[in-house]
């Protein structure tokens, strides 16, 4: 049994041209919903950034026209899940290595470098063959122009990982369902 004190789901377009309108609907829902008014203003900005990047990521890579969003409150946490039945997650890690889901046994329980941006390194940890979580590690101080050389042009997953308090991916192999889950600590 899930102990959510609030739970609501929405079906949205997963197309790039609809990112802006879907984001507006989500943020309006957060502002209008009595239950979600507990989300502080500074966290609302972080939610907006993370939602934007989840939508862009889905539009670019999922290969589906529709996606489901679930908004949940449990204890002091806001949980947002983005669900689709499109392409499983695929990442280029450690430079040029390919990491795809479900993850093969030799790649389980390991950290992989996804990319670096400035002074942060985005990493992913493969918990099981069907689940992983993202984390950000600080890099020692680097100054310009070396800092720019080390900076990737990709920011989406980094923004989600830094804006949220926990960011996971899971794949249900039987149904083909992908779930990106972001959690915000409201305390």
């Amino acid at each position: 049994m899930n102990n959510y004190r609030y739970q609501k789901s929405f079906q949205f377009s997963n197309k790039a041209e609809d990112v802006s309108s879907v984001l507006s609907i989500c943020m309006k829902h957060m502002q209008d919903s009595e239950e979600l008014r507990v989300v502080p203003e500074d966290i609302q900005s972080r939610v907006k950034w993370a939602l934007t990047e989840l939508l862009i990521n889905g539009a670019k890579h999922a290969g589906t026209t529709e996606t489901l969003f679930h908004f949940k409150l449990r204890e002091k946490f806001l949980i947002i899940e983005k669900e689709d039945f499109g392409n499983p997650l695929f990442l280029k890690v450690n430079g040029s290595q390919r990491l795809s889901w479900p993850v093969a046994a030799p790649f389980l329980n390991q950290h992989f470098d996804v990319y670096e941006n400035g002074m942060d390194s985005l990493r992913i940890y493969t918990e099981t063959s069907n689940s992983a979580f993202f984390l950000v590690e600080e890099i020692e101080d680097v100054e310009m122009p070396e800092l720019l050389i080390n900076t990737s042009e990709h920011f989406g997953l980094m923004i989600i990982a830094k804006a949220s308090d926990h960011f996971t991916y899971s794949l249900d192999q039987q149904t083909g369902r992908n779930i990106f889950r972001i959690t915000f600590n409201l305390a």
Partner: protein
Amino acid sequence: MILQVNQVQDITQATILPEEASLANADKFKEEMITLIVEGTKLIIVNFENVNYIDSSFLGSLVVALKYAMPRKTDIYLVALKPDVRNLLTLIRMDKVFKIYKNFDQAMDALNQ
């Protein structure tokens, strides 16, 4: 057209026109920035005064433009960022990569120091 450009000697003031700096206009922005760099300007001051919202695609285009600019001895400053935009750049620590100023005047003061 994404940028409204005003050239003062070898300094280019480039104002982003859309309110949303996003996936929808990131490629066009990148093309226009690269054109300005190729034209040989010394400094591009990118004015964000109209921008309420920025996403990863547009940030990526900014980084590409700076990577293209630096070997060509062109610098890029960012000015008039609204708090939400500034906070996102700070979150991902792009405030360490780009020189950010309150407005054109402050950017020019920094250049002349």
